């Protein structure tokens, strides 16, 4: 059973890592090309500022869910570091459940948010989306000229966090006590400010 859950965890991590990586590459590509265009040729994409922002919000959501699976989030460990491993294990199981609940609430809140304001035009992207729909003949692409697909990021992110926390809960429940990484090991070497 543990092997199955670990495989599931790896699969979810891989999907989230690919999505996070693609988002980061797109953000960099758009801003880099747009900056060069602006300073070298005096022109820029109208959507070149807003689209990377929306992509970042999606990227943050993918990264947040993956960060939870990898135990990388910033958390207080003052109390949890002092208590015995067995009690800590139980506490972290509770934390996983709190995260499932918070993820579900975030998904619900994000859905309500997108429902209330999603039909509004994303002004700087509207023309590009219409152009894309006309060029490709796929009318559905015009939806990208509305705020709906971008505001849904919070709802999708909340759902992903809930899934990640659920997988983590199952993994922690089945693995032997004391197998979870300690505070220091949780820190990503790449992270930093």
């Amino acid at each position, binding site marked *: 059973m543990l092997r199955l859950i670990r495989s599931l965890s790896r699969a979810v991590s891989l999907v989230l*890592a*690919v999505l*996070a*990586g693609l*988002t*980061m*590459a797109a953000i*960099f590509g758009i*801003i*880099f090309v747009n*900056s060069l265009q602006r*300073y070298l040729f005096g022109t820029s994409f109208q959507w070149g*500022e807003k689209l*990377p*922002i929306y992509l*970042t*919000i999606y*990227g*943050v*959501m993918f*990264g*947040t869910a*993956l*960060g*939870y699976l990898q135990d*990388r*989030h*910033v*958390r*207080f*460990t*003052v*109390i*949890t*570091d002092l208590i015995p491993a067995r009690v*800590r294990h139980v*506490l*972290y199981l509770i*934390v996983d459940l*709190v995260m499932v*609940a*918070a993820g579900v*609430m*975030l998904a619900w*809140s994000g859905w*309500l948010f997108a429902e*209330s304001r999603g039909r509004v035009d994303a002004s700087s992207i509207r023309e590009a989306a219409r152009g894309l729909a006309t060029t490709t003949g796929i009318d559905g692409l015009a939806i990208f000229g509305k705020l709906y697909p971008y*505001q849904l990021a*919070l709802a999708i992110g*909340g759902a992903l966090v809930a899934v990640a926390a659920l997988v983590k809960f199952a993994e922690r429940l089945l693995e032997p006590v004391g197998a979870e990484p300690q*505070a*220091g*090991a949780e*820190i*990503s*070497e*790449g*992270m*930093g*400010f």
Partner: protein
Amino acid sequence: MVYLILVGSLAIGTPVAFAICAALFYFMGVGAFPYQLKLVATQMFSGLDSFPLLAIPLFVLAGEVMNESGITVRIIAFAMVIVGRFRAGLALVNIWASVIFAGLSGSAVADTSAIGRVFIPEMARRGYPLEYAAALTAASSVIGPIIPPSIPVIIYALIATGVSVPALFVGGIVPGVLLAIFLSAYVMIFSARYERGAPSPVEEQQRPRGMILLDGLLPLLMPVFVVGTILLGVVTPTEAAAIAVGYALILGVLIYRELPLKALPGIFSRSMVDSSIIMIIIAAVSAGNWLLTYNRIPNMITELTLAFVSSQWTFLIAVIVLLLIVGLFLEGIAAMLVLVPILHPMALSLGIDPVHFGIVVIFNLMIGLITPPMGLCLFVADSIAHVGIGKLTRAILPFFLVELVVLLILAFVPQTVTYLPRLLGF
């Protein structure tokens, strides 16, 4: 009940961002109009809906690319030629390589990781105690977020009104160099004994010095270009960060040929995850700050505090003590996001220069990177040295005191921060 949920979930180890969210969901769920559940997502979205904020993932990406592309090694070799010949040469190279690295990445933890991998084993090989080498690497990496470009500075400018990124960038230059000078003085006085009998690190270099200096010039052009164009107003910090990534990619892939293309997906993915960990806190704190501001709580706290504190100096001392304590338990940027919206208006009310206050706050919180139990740089240094946090904490104490002295100088001699920005017209 809201505070009970917040404190309770923080205490059991819930990630900071989601502990805030949990408390907000409860409040919005049970509260009457205008409080609604959708406000949490609305405010979190607004908190991230900012082009300047995109500088964070891009600078994190720039740091990752530099680490993988051979730029760090060249910076270290360059610093070795410049300061390696002096007393306690290797310790000095460690400090001044951090200064150069600071101009490229602006991230203390990336600095500890990149420089520590090279220096901690090398310093141990040349007679320095392992814990001393790790402690010095962690302590000198605090320079990273002080010297521009700096991720904490960008975040500070976003949350504090009336202070610009370029002004804070310029304001951080002297404090960063001052910290490097004080750390250098300390190691020259107290560390030379470790290197006695060992050949000078410069003598051990295999390649001619001229070649090393020439090789280091390309990476060194990057901070000059990045910081220069931001300060001249040619590009925004976000655009400068994207250009820095592009430049590092060109160096790593095309010129040095040390960065294989197959490494890029991993670099992009790691950078996004590392940025998300901070940006989700920014989103959650934005939602929390909306609630506080809607209820005028920062104003009430300001009025209450100003009733007791009327002098700039008393206020600064109180802030330093508060942030040193908070820095022990909370990651610096998370602490900044929570406290700056409250402390910044108070500082302005007392007539403290916003750039001066900003740099003091950032410097203060970055010291928290080397203090246990939440000292991220300490953890990274220990993951390389494997000496144990206890031993490392004892070794870092003198460096902590040096940094405290520099902090007090910055706080009580405002010109150390404000002179350069004023000179350049910010």
